[in-house]
């Protein structure tokens, strides 16, 4: 599993401030920390950068590359900033992100073709977010065909099925699972990614990581190629790197077995088993899913 560290993000106030003031220290610290924790890629989320998109992007990418050799995922909705970033990236970059919308087809996808980069392609299109797995399939087939025509091969496309918060719409989580299993048949060679933290948006703070970790193991089993995750979630990193095989095994069993015997499990195992069941859609989500 390719892990993309999400922590360099303009949405966190501190990063927003230091970008504005061109203060390299905190950025370097954030980058070094995630690199040390074993991320494979780093996401650089600068938002829409309305002011000086070119200069800002160049500065931040160079600052990041001063302290890491990792490839970067460039996260901006501004095509001018995106192109400026691609110009200075030393390694093959990942454009985060394009979609099937007309605007994205006209601005982001041509950049992926021009610079032969990888590109995140979400299932969103002009009609919005598809309602289920089949609609996701139809949407991505259409957008990928368009990308192929521009000269972007499937291997450069990282499909984002779009993960919604489980507390908002549990069925969207189960259709994600359904869709990710179909993906290799739909688009052979294509990769996949998702914004994992979105899953637990709105969930109790102390339980967010449990949801994220469990889901990542589940989708990994279904062939998920990568995910954008917190580069500082040590427990998630240990789990995904195979350091806790018994928990991974348990999650697999909870995915398969209809009537998993919960009585024999330790407290920690019980938490993973219940979380898996709720993520599989076997029981209705509520914030207190561990208490039933």
């Amino acid at each position: 599993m390719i892990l993309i560290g999400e922590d360099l993000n303009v949405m966190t106030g501190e990063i927003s401030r230091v970008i504005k003031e061109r203060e390299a220290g905190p950025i370097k610290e954030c980058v070094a920390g995630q690199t040390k924790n074993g991320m494979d890629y780093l996401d650089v989320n600068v938002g829409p950068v309305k002011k000086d998109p070119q200069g800002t992007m160049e500065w931040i990418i160079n600052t990041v590359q001063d302290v890491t050799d990792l490839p970067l995922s460039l996260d901006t909705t501004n095509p001018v900033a995106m192109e400026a970033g691609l110009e200075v990236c030393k390694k093959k970059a990942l454009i985060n992100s394009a979609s099937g919308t007309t605007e994205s087809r006209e601005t982001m996808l041509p950049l992926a073709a021009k610079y032969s980069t990888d590109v995140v392609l979400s299932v969103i299109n002009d009609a919005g977010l598809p309602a289920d797995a089949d609609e996701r399939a139809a949407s991505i087939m259409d957008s990928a065909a368009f990308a192929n025509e521009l000269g972007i091969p499937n291997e450069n496309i990282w499909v984002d099925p779009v993960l919604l918060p489980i507390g908002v719409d549990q069925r969207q989580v189960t259709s994600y699972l359904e869709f990710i299993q179909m993906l290799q048949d739909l688009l052979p060679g294509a990769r996949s990614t998702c914004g994992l933290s979105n899953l637990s948006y709105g969930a109790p703070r102390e339980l967010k990581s449990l949801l994220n970790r469990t889901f990542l193991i589940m989708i990994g089993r279904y062939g998920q190629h990568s995910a954008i995750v917190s580069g500082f979630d040590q427990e998630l990193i240990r789990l995904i790197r195979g350091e806790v095989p018994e928990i991974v095994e348990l999650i697999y069993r909870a995915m398969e077995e209809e009537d998993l015997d919960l009585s024999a499990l330790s407290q920690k195992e019980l938490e993973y088993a219940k979380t898996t069941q709720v993520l599989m859609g076997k029981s209705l989500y509520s914030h207190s899913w561990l208490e039933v």
Partner: protein
Amino acid sequence: MKYEPPLEKISVNIRETVLGQGEKSVKIGGENTLPFHSFEGSLPNSAGLALEVLDTQPENWAPSVLEPFEDVVSDPVKWAKKCVEVYGAEMLCLRLLSTDPMGKDRSPEEAAEITKKVTDAVDVPFIVWGTDMEDKDAQVLMQVARVCSGKNLLLGPVVKGNYEKIAKAALEHGHAVVAQASMDANLTKELNIALCKFFPPEKIVVDPTASALGYGLEYTFSIIEEIKQFGLVDKDKMMQMPILCDFGGDCWRTKEAKESREQGILWEAISGITFLLAGANLLVFRHPESLKLIKEMVI
């Protein structure tokens, strides 16, 4: 070969909740099949149909919904009696509107006293309803629970912010509660889980906050359907509570209802039958004719 229609057998039940006491007590819920699927399972209890009574003179009521009660609106005891004796109501919903802190702001003691008088006067089961003000409702309903101890009232609404206080008083004094979570199956489950830590599940009725026709009835329909499906098909124990819908206020606020008696009655009846089709177990009506229409249709 003989054709066998495929039937979906469900192995669990919606909990049966008993309201009131004695001969006139009413049972709701208890079904092990989807609404009106009597060919697939059993629906032991027909829906509970309650008529509304206010503890104070109604303000701004449409003339045609005020008309049936015109001679009794100044006295909730007479109002309740008329509902039962003249209009044949088998259950009542006493709305403690005068406790509204933004309005008359009557004290919990006064409210409990009125509730005692009204519930002593007629022997049908009662829903006793607050004003959707979390803190005030808690004070009022706790006091009502104490003063009317043992009457097995259905107290509500009980929400995330006040469920502990009200449900503890209800438990101590032998009442049931209405757990209210607005249009959200996840939050409905959440509140039920919290309540069931100390409160018996068979004394909980859930309220998804019904919206009448024209106010988002489709959403209410979906939520009721969802709750029922989770409870019966997915066997989710925290979703097997009977469902209450209270929507008379919405119906009689419409321009159509204010203009025409017939339109108002139909508005309320159509909303009610729709909720029953979705799976509601207990309806609160404002107009006796709407209640009568529903009764003729389903009972």
